[in-house]
């Protein structure tokens, strides 16, 4: 009996080892079964993607789509790196912008000949274009700023169109603060500097002074060359004034406010404003549907030449095709991306399911949520500033910007310390590249 048992055990071991060695055969012929591996970062749209994939698989029965998602405060870049090294490379993955374009240059399939390229709005492909070749398909267009509760502003008697300067914002905050009990709010602004929402401060708020430079991209180039500094730059002085204002009128302890805490306190009507972007709409709707909300610009000063009346709009992430994948997988990947950008179902997915603002002109469906509409209004009026953070060196946002901002919040950094720290680290990281 004992013998039998040991033989069975050994056999099962051998079998399981042998099973590991079996390689899935990859076919290159069309209409042969293809397994398309997608590795993406947007946790907010997993259900919507699953349903899109189900329809895609009906349209192309020979393609089986497997999707993995890492994001929502988790480190997508690091995970992608591990995934690529594991040998199980995804066919479709995400890149964020220029620094990742350079990092993964050997992995990117040119998509210049794809039909959706001609439909993409001006400027949406700039970050993933190199030497005339396009390497990424934009997810969507997104924007962030100060989301405000229109009803509360009316009750408090504040005219939102008047808020185009820091002084006006300060006055509005003070007015809301004085009418707290009337409005039923705990705090004026919902903000965070740590936990799962650290990026709302250390990336998004931090981007504003970059975006408001006379020429943001020249400024980044000058930083890279070491000819410009953050310390002594007036936009960054303005940024610190904005932070001080935020700290004064937001929660007592911003360090441990999670993303859930941040948007839910706004959706529950406990704050009048929320520093976030239109991607939050799904979560807000889950709590309180049909809220009457829109964007306010984020002013850094009273000087009109600083474009203080703009909100920050950009393309958050791009879909890229792995050039090392088998030909059949690459074909399937391009089919899937085009299905998303060009088909009826894709348009429905982008606009209705995900509440995205499309980056393509062929999509005529109108955004039906208030935040997307607000962004479209700002875009049409030309009142937008770019997203610049993707141009900063690796490691500059997390951990550097996060560390500096949290230290400033805790009072361990003075204004000068904070800005000098940002300069020193920038040069260190540029050199380490």
């Amino acid at each position, binding site marked *: 009996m004992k013998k039998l048992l040991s033989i069975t055990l050994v056999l099962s071991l051998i079998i399981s080892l042998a099973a590991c060695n079996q390689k899935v055969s990859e076919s290159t012929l069309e209409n042969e079964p293809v397994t398309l591996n997608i590795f993406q970062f947007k946790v907010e749209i997993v259900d919507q993607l699953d349903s899109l994939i189900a329809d895609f698989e009906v349209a192309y029965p020979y393609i089986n789509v497997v999707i993995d998602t890492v994001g929502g405060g988790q480190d997508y870049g690091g995970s992608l790196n591990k995934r690529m090294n594991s040998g199980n490379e995804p066919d479709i993955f995400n890149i964020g912008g220029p620094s990742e374009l350079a*990092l993964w240059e050997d992995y990117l399939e040119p998509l210049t000949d794809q039909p959706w390229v001609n439909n993409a709005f001006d400027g949406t492909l700039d970050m993933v274009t190199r030497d005339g070749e396009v390497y990424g398909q934009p997810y969507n267009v997104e924007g962030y700023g100060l989301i405000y509760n229109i009803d509360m502003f009316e009750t408090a008697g504040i005219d939102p169109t008047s808020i185009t300067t820091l002084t006006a914002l300060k006055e509005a905050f003070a007015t809301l603060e004085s009418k707290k009990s009337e409005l039923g709010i705990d705090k004026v602004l919902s903000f965070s500097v740590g*936990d799962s929402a650290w990026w709302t401060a250390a990336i998004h708020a931090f981007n504003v002074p970059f975006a408001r430079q006379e020429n943001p991209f020249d400024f980044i180039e000058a930083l890279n060359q070491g000819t410009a500094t953050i310390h002594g730059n007036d936009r960054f002085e303005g940024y610190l004034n904005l932070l001080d204002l935020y700290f004064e009128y937001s929660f007592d302890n911003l360090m441990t406010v999670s993303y859930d805490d941040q948007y839910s306190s706004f959706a529950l009507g406990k704050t009048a404003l929320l520093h976030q972007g239109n991607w939050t709409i799904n979560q807000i709707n889950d709590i309180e549907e049909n809220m009457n909300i829109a964007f306010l610009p984020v002013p850094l000063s009273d000087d009109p030449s600083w474009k203080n009346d703009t909100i920050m709009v950009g393309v958050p992430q791009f879909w890229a095709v792995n050039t090392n994948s088998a030909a059949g997988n690459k074909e399937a990947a391009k089919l899937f991306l085009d299905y998303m950008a060009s088909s009826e179902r894709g348009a429905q997915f982008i606009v209705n399911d995900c509440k995205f603002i499309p980056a393509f002109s062929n999509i005529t469906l109108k955004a039906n949520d208030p935040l997307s509409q607000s962004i479209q209004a700002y875009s049409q009026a030309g009142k937008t500033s770019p997203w610049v953070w993707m141009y900063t060196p*690796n490691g500059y946002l997390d951990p550097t910007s996060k560390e500096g901002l949290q230290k400033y919040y805790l009072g361990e950094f003075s204004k000068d310390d904070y800005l000098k720290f940002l300069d020193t680290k920038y040069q260190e990281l540029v050199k380490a590249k």
Partner: protein
Amino acid sequence: MNTKFRKWIIFWTFLTPTLITFFLVVIIPFLTGIYYSFSDWNAIPGKPIQFIGFANYLNVFNDQQVMKSFLLTLTYSGYSILLINIVGFSLALLVTQRLRTANLLRTIFFMPNLIGGLILGYIWKFIFIKILPDLMLSGENMLSKPTTALLAMAIVSTWQMAGYIMVIYVAAIQSIPEEFLEASKIDGANALQRIRHIVFPLVAPAFTVSLFLTLSGSFKMYDVNASLTAGEPARQTELLAMEILSKAFKELNFGEGQAQAVLFFVFIAVISILQVYSSKKREVEM
């Protein structure tokens, strides 16, 4: 087939799979890691790797965050080694008394150890942020200040590890011959004196093991660190393991991260060997 040969077959059949796995996931990565620490490897497969000598190692010593994380790790280890061993030993004394519920208590105290550190971290984060401030009637929570956040981490790892360490002490206490305790009782030793002069010296081997486990465990701490504080606030609870990961995967500076990891290994090895050596000397033979 003679018995010797059969034994040999059985021996290697059972050992080989483990050995292969051990080589694949420990030995080989360790050796390639040493190689990478002398290069400018950036973890993008297919890129040429350049050998850059000791540059990575020199950078480690010029990195302020490394020094900070090193001191934090020492502080944290101090807290958690003390807490885990005191709590573990006290629990062991408690459950070796003649209590009706002794067995049940042992199971209960051991249970937190069955939950992974990541999950424990998330559960305790909720407790520290949402529940404790309400109980203490103050808006402050432990995770928002650097000093208390480090202590919070030590509390969570104590919650997790104390039961495990308790089991080791229980085994040691139970192996103390009853006569010793009885004889001392007759000689008029009170409970404290019995613990001080009989139990302590005789469980010294268990101290060696427990100290080794808690010491290496707290130096290597990553899971609770990642889920409870994630290095916040402002990288002031970022222990060495997390610092290494951040250097490699966030700054994408894999060579330097790897150099830190090699030094980290040497450091833990030296400390652990010294500790085992010095504790061994204090053990008494029965």
